[in-house]
Each structure stands twice: as structure tokens, then as C-alpha cells.
């Protein structure tokens, strides 16, 4: 079965497009709701099968398959192609995207069972479009197609965050996410255009070979890579663009799992992994990437410690882990960052779907409304704890090795500052995640589960939390098993890292994780340490974190002052200068016309007289002036 992997990835790419077109164009089918959902799931299954097949073939042949068609031809030469590039990174990314996409679509059938059929159909239209765009982004053979798909996933993110558009907070969050990522995208577009001017092409492979042979001029490259990094900052929620991601949790939880944890937010990391050879030419930008990544990781971890909304904790943890990946790339170890992207995609999707299952059961996002759920939902609790252990970097779980690799790479990359920050963040990560675990799944059950008005406004009365239906449990177990399998597999077949990490690294990293878990257990599990007094120890930091370090306010202030101020100036110019000139001209025309009306007497003799005088004047002019 040595078929061309290019064709197979093309099939994987086009199946969601088929699903999107069918659902978008055939209205009656879409409005049926559930059949439309199953059709979309079917296409996603096919896409996943094709993706896995392509990955298997690709890993054997180890030769990138390039399948492109000319697009935007000018002077007989194609400015940019459209098609697929199946190499090691893109096929693995394709597998991750199609897998999580499939599981999330399956999960959503159970999660959104209360939705009206038409809304459910709309949801699956967006889901299919997202799968198509994200795969296109992963497979893009040139940067222009990548940018196009990049914008498309941004659009899908906007549409899906605002899925419950009747909720003002959801609509607001959707707009916020769109605008803030767009601010970064402007940088990306500028960077790509400048890069294509310098290299003469958008094609990734061609630019790579130019870099490899050293024919790409390095002068001014720092600006280009920084502009590209700006786009990645917006998409991957790096400080100060991270503010959109926690608000994006207004969307349905499966959407958060797919877009805002596993795939779309990692697009920025993926872009940097794709162009690491370009960034390697600009070490100054890489240093910025590393420091901002580490700072983002720390900031988001601190913020995650004080959140009471389970989804917001996970959102900040995503931001923090994205910071990890970025730091690895900044340290020149893009492979480690990409590895963490993959394992993170698995276990964070698992955590979000687990959280969704909890929210589905108690009809609230808030941790105080939960408690003691492990007895009522043992399966959900098990998979959630697997995901948490993986995120905390406990050995044998998925996230352990990738985290180790990042820490080792950052140390080897000669960045002790970010290394120390990441080490501390590892401790914080374990702490805040196990805080969630102890608060939600252990301890005493909250008395009033879900006061009305919380959650999604389903309008259910109080009821006993119970395990979700099988469509939701199945994806959870698949992700949990995969997370475990990845961890065990790579622990057993651990290839030698390029730069062997120092011997003390593993014990200290695991120690940081265990210490975090221990602190969380003492505080929220056994209650040996009073949570209030622990919070009191960090008084100012805690209150600052509760205010999100005022970053949102600063951005809003900047927005209000700069953008709205500028708009006001432009508005004034338009209203009084541009319109003013036009109004004066039109008023003048009216007045002059009114005055000139008097000379039209209607008598033929006056006209003849005017003609005669006119001729006389012309003759005199010709004689005297133009003689």
C-alpha cells in the first residue's frame, strides 16, 4: 500500500470541506440537527483514517510529498501554489487535528443534546469548516496558503466562541478574540510579504533550501521574523495578547477543547516550528521569543491559581503551556516544543472534555458548586486525573517527557533565567491543577448544585450529577488511553536527546511537580493548611491576580485612548473638513445658480443680442490678445 501520501492527505483535507459544503448548502439537511452531526462525524472519521494512513506511509518513506497546483499565475509563473505538503511534521499535526476534531465532534453530540436542531446543524457547519481550515494550515506548502487558513481558523474561532450569540458575554468574547488575534495577524501579513520580497517566493521548501544554501540575505531578517512572531503571539496567546483566550471560554466546552486548547492556539507554535530554520538566523528574536514565552508561562500560571471557574483555570493553563512551547522554540529546540504541542494537544483536550463532562453534570462552571464528584462520576474523575498528572509532568504520563525535553533544551540553550521560571511554573502547574481536582472531585459535595442562571441557561432544575452518555465518555477514554500510551511508549523507547540534560534535571522537575501536588493536597485535600491563610500570605499578589494584573484594563485603556481618540480625530476631519468643503461647494452652486436664473428672460431677442456680444468679444480677444 505504498500510495502517494500526497493524495491521501489531500483526501483527509477535502473530507471536512465536503462535509462543510453539504451542511452549508443543503439547508433542510442541516436543520435536521442530529443527522447532520453524524454526517460531519462520519467525514471526520474518514479524514482521521486518511491522516493516520498518510502518517504511516510518510514515516516509512521519510520523503516529503509535494502536491501543488498553480494559483495566482502572472507572466506564466505561479506567485503562489495551493496544495499540500506532506512531511513528518505536517502529517503528525494532521493526525492530531483530525483526531481531536473527530473526538470533539463525537463528544458534542452528547454535550449539546439540548440544543435546537437548527443550531446544532450550524455548530457542525462551523466544526467542519474549522477542521478543513486547520488541516489546510498544517499542510500548507507555502506561506500564503498558510496565512489564508490561519485567518479561516480565526474566523471559525470567532463563530464558535459566539455560538451562543444571544449571550452578550459570548458575543463580546468572540469579538475580543477576533480583534486581538487580528492585531497580531497584521504583523504576520507584513512579515510574510516582506519575506516573499526578500526570498522571491512564498514556498516553504524553496525558502528552506535558500536558507540552507545561505543565499537568503540576512540583512533585515530580524524585522521579518519578529513580524511573523507577532502573528504567532496573537494566535498562541503570548503576553500581552493572552487576554483573549480566557474570555474565549464563553464558547461551548468542546469548542474550547478543540480550538482553544489542542489545535488553533497551537498554530502559532506550529508556524514557528515550520520556520525554525528562519528564526535560527535571527538569535535576537529567538531570545525575545524565549523570554516572552517564559514570562507568559509564569503570568498565566499565577493567574490560574486564583480562578474559580474550572474552564478559566484550564484556559490559563493552556496559555502557560503555550509559553512553555514558545520558550523551547526560543531556546532553539523547536522539536521539543513541537513534541510538547502534540502531547499537550492530547491531554489538554482530555482535560477540557473532562471539565465539560463535569459542567454538563452540575450545570455550573464554578468550583464551589462542585465537590465530591469522584463518587458520582468515577470514570470522568479517573480520566481527568490522568490528564492532570500528565499536565503536572509525572513520569509515565504523556506530558512528562515533553516537559522534560523542554526544560533540558532550555538549560542546554544557555537560558538559565527562563529555565528557573519554567521550573517554578512546573510547581505552580501541579498546584493549580490539583487544586481543581481536590475541589471538584473530592471533599464534601456542594449543597446546591447549580443555581439557576449558571452554566448555559439550559433551565434544568436541581438534579443528581451522573456520568455523561457514551458519546461523551468514549472520546474521554480514547484520549486518556492515548495520553498514557504516548507517555509509556516514549519512556520505554527514549531516544538520546541531542544535548544530554544534566542528571539532576529529572528529579528536580518531578520534585517540583510532586511538591505542587503535595501543597494542593495539604491545602484542599486534607485541609492541613488553611486555604484562606495561604491566600493571605500572598495578599497583594493574589488581589493583583484576581484583577488579572490589570492587563485587560491596560489594553482596554490603550484601546480607548489611542484607537477611539484616533477615530474621533478622523471623525472630526471627516465631519467638518471633508464634509465642510463639500457643503460649501454645493451651497455656492445653489446661490450662484439662483442669481444666474435672472438673465434667462425667455425673449429670443435677448439671446440673439448675447450671441452678438459674445461673437464681438471673441473677435476682439482674437485680435488683441491672441494676435
Amino acid at each position, binding site marked *: 500500500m505504498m500510495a502517494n501520501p500526497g493524495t491521501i492527505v489531500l483526501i483527509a483535507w477535502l473530507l471536512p470541506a465536503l462535509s462543510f459544503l453539504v451542511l452549508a448548502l443543503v439547508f433542510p439537511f442541516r436543520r435536521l440537527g442530529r443527522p447532520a452531526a453524524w454526517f460531519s462525524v462520519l467525514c471526520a472519521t474518514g479524514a482521521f483514517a486518511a491522516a493516520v494512513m498518510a502518517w504511516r506511509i510518510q514515516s516509512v518513506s521519510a520523503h516529503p510529498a509535494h502536491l501543488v497546483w498553480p494559483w495566482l499565475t502572472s507572466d506564466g509563473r505561479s506567485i503562489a501554489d495551493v496544495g499540500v505538503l506532506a512531511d513528518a511534521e505536517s502529517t503528525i499535526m494532521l493526525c492530531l487535528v483530525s483526531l481531536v476534531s473527530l473526538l470533539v465532534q463525537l463528544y458534542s453530540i452528547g454535550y449539546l443534546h439540548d440544543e435546537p436542531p437548527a443550531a446544532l446543524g450550524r455548530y457542525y457547519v462551523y466544526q467542519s469548516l474549522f477542521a478543513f481550515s486547520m488541516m489546510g494550515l498544517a499542510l500548507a506548502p507555502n506561506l500564503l496558503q498558510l496565512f489564508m487558513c490561519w485567518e479561516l481558523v480565526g474566523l471559525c474561532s470567532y463563530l464558535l466562541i459566539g455560538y451562543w450569540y444571544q449571550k452578550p458575554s459570548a458575543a463580546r468574547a468572540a469579538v475580543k478574540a477576533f480583534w486581538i488575534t487580528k492585531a497580531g495577524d497584521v504583523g504576520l501579513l507584513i512579515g510574510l510579504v516582506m519575506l516573499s520580497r526578500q526570498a522571491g517566493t512564498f514556498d516553504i521548501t524553496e525558502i528552506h533550501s535558500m536558507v540552507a544554501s545561505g543565499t537568503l540575505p540576512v540583512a533585515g531578517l530580524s524585522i521579518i521574523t519578529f513580524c511573523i512572531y507577532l502573528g504567532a503571539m496573537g494566535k498562541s496567546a503570548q503576553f500581552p495578547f493572552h487576554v483573549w483566550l480566557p474570555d474565549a471560554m464563553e464558547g461551548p466546552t468542546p469548542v474550547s477543547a478543540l480550538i482553544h486548547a489542542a489545535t488553533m492556539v497551537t498554530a502559532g507554535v506550529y508556524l514557528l516550528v515550520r520556520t525554525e530554520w528562519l528564526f535560527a538566523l535571527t538569535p535576537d528574536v529567538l531570545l525575545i521569543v524565549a523570554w516572552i514565552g517564559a514570562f507568559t508561562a509564569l503570568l498565566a500560571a499565577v493567574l490560574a491559581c486564583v480562578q474559580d471557574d474550572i474552564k478559566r483555570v484550564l484556559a490559563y493553563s493552556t496559555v502557560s503551556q503555550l509559553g512553555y512551547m514558545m520558550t523551547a522554540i526560543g531556546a532553539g529546540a523547536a522539536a521539543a516544543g513541537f513534541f510538547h504541542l502534540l502531547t499537550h494537544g492530547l491531554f489538554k483536550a482530555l482535560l477540557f472534555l473532562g471539565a465539560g463532562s463535569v459542567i454538563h453534570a452540575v450545570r455550573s462552571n464554578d468550583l464551589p458548586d462542585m465537590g465530591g464528584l469522584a463518587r458520582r462520576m468515577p470514570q470522568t474523575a479517573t480520566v481527568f486525573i490522568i490528564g492532570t498528572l500528565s499536565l503536572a509532568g509525572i513520569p509515565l504520563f504523556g506530558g512528562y517527557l515533553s516537559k522534560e525535553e523542554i526544560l533540558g533544551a532550555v538549560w542546554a540553550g544557555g537560558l538559565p533565567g527562563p529555565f528557573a521560571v519554567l521550573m517554578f511554573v512546573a510547581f505552580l502547574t501541579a498546584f493549580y491543577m490539583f487544586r481543581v481536582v481536590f475541589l471538584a472531585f473530592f471533599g464534601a459535595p456542594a449543597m446546591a448544585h447549580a443555581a439557576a442562571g449558571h452554566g448555559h441557561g439550559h433551565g434544568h432544575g436541581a438534579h443528581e450529577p451522573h456520568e455523561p452518555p457514551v458519546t461523551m465518555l468514549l472520546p474521554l477514554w480514547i484520549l486518556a488511553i492515548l495520553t498514557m500510551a504516548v507517555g509509556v511508549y516514549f519512556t520505554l523507547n527514549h531516544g538520546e536527546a541531542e544535548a544530554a540534560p544534566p542528571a539532576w534535571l529529572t528529579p528536580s522537575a518531578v520534585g517540583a511537580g510532586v511538591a505542587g501536588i503535595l501543597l494542593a493536597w495539604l491545602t484542599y485535600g486534607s485541609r492541613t493548611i488553611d486555604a484562606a491563610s495561604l491566600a493571605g500570605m500572598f495578599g497583594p499578589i493574589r488581589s493583583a491576580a484576581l484583577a488579572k494584573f490589570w492587563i485587560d484594563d491596560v489594553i482596554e485603556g490603550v484601546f480607548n485612548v489611542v484607537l477611539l481618540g484616533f477615530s474621533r480625530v478622523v471623525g472630526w476631519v471627516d465631519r467638518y473638513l471633508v464634509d465642510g468643503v463639500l457643503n460649501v461647494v454645493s451651497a455656492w452652486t445653489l446661490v450662484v445658480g439662483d442669481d444666474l436664473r435672472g438673465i434667462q428672460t425667455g*425673449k429670443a431677442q435677448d439671446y440673439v*443680442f448675447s450671441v452678438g456680444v459674445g461673437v464681438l468679444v471673441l473677435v476682439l480677444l482674437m485680435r488683441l490678445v491672441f494676435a
Partner: protein
Amino acid sequence: MGLQPYLILSAVVFCIGLFGVTTRRNTIGILLGVELMMNAVNINLVALARFNGSSAGMVFTVFTICITVTEAALGLAIVILLFRTRRTVMADHLDLLKG
């Protein structure tokens, strides 16, 4: 005798015609002025044809005279119709061109 006296005569007749057209209150007087202007043109044509040694101008003049006759007939007909509908032929009462 040179060309100039003919042209001066023509110009004088033309100006008299134009003066009549612009100043006469009676429509028939205006028509007479138009006839004078036409004849000034005819004098011009004949004189120039004679001095250029080309007969085209003379032939053209014959045409013009014919057209002038029909034009006079038409003009008088219009004046009669005007009198029937408006009961006046005074030009300063006729301001139908005014919108």
C-alpha cells in the same frame, strides 16, 4: 476696385440686420433684419468668389437665395400662427422660452 469695399458693405449690411433683429419690437421687422443679414452673407460669397476666380461661391449664392425665400415664407407663416394664438406679434410679449 479691390475686395475691401465689398466686404465693408457686407459688414455694414450685416450690422444693420443684426441691429434690426435685436431692437425691432415687431416680429415682421425682425424677419426683415434676418433677410438683411442673409443678403450680407450673399454679398460676401459673391465678392469672394469673384476675387478667387472660383464659381462655387456664385452657385452657392443661388442656393442661398432660394432658401431665403422659403425661410421668409415659413417665418411669415409662423408670425400669422403666432398672431392667431397669442393675439400679438410684439417680440417683448413673447417670452415662451422662459422655463
